[in-house]
């Protein structure tokens, strides 16, 4: 059983196609592990055991009949962040507001995963409505970091990152509005991709901030992430911001990376920007050392690494929180206790249903952001805050476009620190927001980013770095990350805390 869980998703898919592992056997191995270990981690909100085994049997039948055997993830189990609708399965957004909600439809990505032959194990924990950076605001309890159970898993896709890190899912989907795939991936020592805005349909993603939200994969290495991204990306007529005609095509990228590695200087020809101002005060020494060490290693392997600067870094967090909260206050107005979700028992009239259901159904951080958003959109303050932030957003995008016009990718930290202790920051919302400094700009500009392990820091915790590319440059970013993972083994180190042998 542990053999199954020690494989990457693509290795497991290969074993299933070769017939050495059965689909049900693979699902069983993961379901058993979730039962045994998830009590300590808290990665899952819901586990669909019977349904997963039935899906696995069905996948096995399709495979035997010769159907869809060319999907590399066929028969491989997966799990998704609990903001992604799966028809008829409890979908909570980690909120009391949606406790018991069962969507009457599938998200686009859920349809695509099913079509690719994926077996759905369950739904993963997050900060309530994806608002947070530590998975501590979940109504269903915290997700602990598999490397050290006293630390946070990051957020908001903490359940997705922790499940992959602990071997409780071969790969998973998360969503990223301001760093919510990349930061938990870095905290848990796994790989995550925040795709270009518009490349993955948001249909069926419970909306937080619609101009920033994007679904993406988290896996044990970048090749697993690329396979999942290829499966979920592409056009969907139900999301008018889904603009990519065809799914990402990563064919030949791995071969290209491996050929480059065999030549000895695999990064030759890559122009890498190292923004000096990202490494100044505020970045912890361990993260700084690991990330700069990665830059030197890339240089040694042939990359042309140049120190540069990206202006406006200190304006990204305020602009982001104004825009994200404004959009959140609008998106979350739908939770009114009428058609679905929680309705307060205490209401005595129609307005009372809205006020009491929302006040009892939302947690503190969600209320804070809805209030902030209502305020910056209110008459008298709209121009000073919301309009101003939209203008600064344009300036930030232009600054990134300028740098990415000259370089293949930007190498940056993901988070100023490694995963911190549970309870360490949650009482200080402003400090929590400021920790998003390296991730939010990509969402404002719509750009893709890959977070991948590059070392270890304080307390033996993993450190992640971020590769940032131009819009739709995912194949190039995947190649660069793949080269890194061919010449290093940080991503192969496993959390030992559970003694679970993977």
């Amino acid at each position, binding site marked *: 059983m542990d053999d199954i869980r020690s494989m990457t998703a693509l290795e497991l898919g290969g074993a299933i196609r070769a017939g050495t592992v059965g689909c049900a056997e693979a699902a069983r191995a993961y379901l058993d592990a979730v039962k045994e270990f998830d009590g300590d981690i808290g990665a899952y909100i819901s586990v669909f055991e019977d349904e997963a085994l039935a899906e696995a049997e069905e996948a096995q039948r399709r495979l035997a009949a010769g159907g869809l055997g060319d999907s590399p993830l066929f028969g491989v189990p997966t799990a998704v962040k609990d903001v992604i609708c799966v028809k008829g399965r409890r979908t909570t957004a980690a909120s009391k507001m949606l406790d018991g909600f069962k969507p009457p439809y599938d998200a686009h990505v859920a349809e695509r995963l099913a079509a690719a032959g994926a077996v759905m194990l369950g739904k993963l924990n997050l900060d309530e409505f994806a608002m947070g950076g530590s998975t501590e605001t979940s109504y269903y309890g915290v997700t602990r970091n598999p490397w050290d159970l006293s630390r946070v898993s990051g957020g908001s896709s903490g359940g997705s990152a922790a499940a992959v890190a602990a071997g409780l899912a071969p790969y998973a989907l998360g969503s990223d509005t301001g760093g919510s795939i990349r930061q938990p991936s870095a905290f848990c020592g796994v790989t995550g991709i925040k795709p270009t805005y*518009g490349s993955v349909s948001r249909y069926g993603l419970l909306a937080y901030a619609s101009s920033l939200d994007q679904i993406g994969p988290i896996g044990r290495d970048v090749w697993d992430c690329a396979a999942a991204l290829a499966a979920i990306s592409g056009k969907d007529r139900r999301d008018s*911001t889904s603009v990519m005609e065809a799914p990402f095509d990563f064919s030949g990228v791995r071969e290209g990376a491996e050929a480059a590695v065999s030549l000895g200087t695999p990064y030759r020809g890559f122009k890498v920007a190292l923004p000096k101002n990202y490494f100044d005060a505020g970045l912890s020494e361990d993260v700084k050392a690991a990330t700069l060490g990665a830059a030197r290693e890339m240089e040694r392997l042939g990359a042309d690494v140049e120190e540069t600067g990206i202006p406006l870094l200190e304006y990204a967090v305020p602009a982001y929180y104004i825009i994200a909260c404004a959009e959140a206050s609008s998106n979350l*107005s739908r939770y009114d206790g009428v058609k679905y979700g929680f309705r307060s028992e205490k209401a005595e009239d129609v307005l009372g249903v809205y006020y009491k259901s929302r*006040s009892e159904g939302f947690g503190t951080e969600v209320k*804070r952001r809805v209030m*902030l958003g209502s305020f910056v959109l209110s008459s008298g303050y709209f121009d000073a805050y919301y309009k101003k932030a939209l*203008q600064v957003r*344009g300036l930030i995008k232009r600054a990134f476009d300028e740098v990415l016009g000259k370089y293949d990718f930007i190498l940056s930290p993901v988070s100023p620190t490694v995963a911190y202790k549970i309870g360490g920051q949650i009482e200080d919302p402003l400090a929590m927001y*400021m920790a998003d400094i390296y991730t939010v700009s990509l969402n404002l500009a719509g750009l893709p980013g890959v977070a991948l392990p590059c070392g270890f820091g304080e307390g033996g915790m993993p450190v992640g770095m971020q590769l940032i590319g131009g*819009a739709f440059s995912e194949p190039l970013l995947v190649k660069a990350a793949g080269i890194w993972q061919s010449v290093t083994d940080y991503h192969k180190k496993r959390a030992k805390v559970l003694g679970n042998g993977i």
Partner: protein
Amino acid sequence: MRISDELIGYICELSRLELSEDEKEGRKKDLTDILDYMDKLNELDTRGLPEMTHPFDAANRFREDAPANGDRRQEMLANAPDRKGDFFKVFKTVE
């Protein structure tokens, strides 16, 4: 910027939230801190600059107004907190 009792009441009304006194005091403090931090944007001169609402210029995509779904009334009502027959049940909205 200082958040007065009056302003916090107005924000709650816009947000359709009612807060306890403790919550109100908490939000007054942290919204003040957060908005003071956001005032940093005023260091930038943005006069005349365009407002970027989306990562790229996307036009609304129109389609024929033809029904594509069947009768899913029971599926939609299945999540209702309260219903009467085939309807969502709510308090009286007009006197």
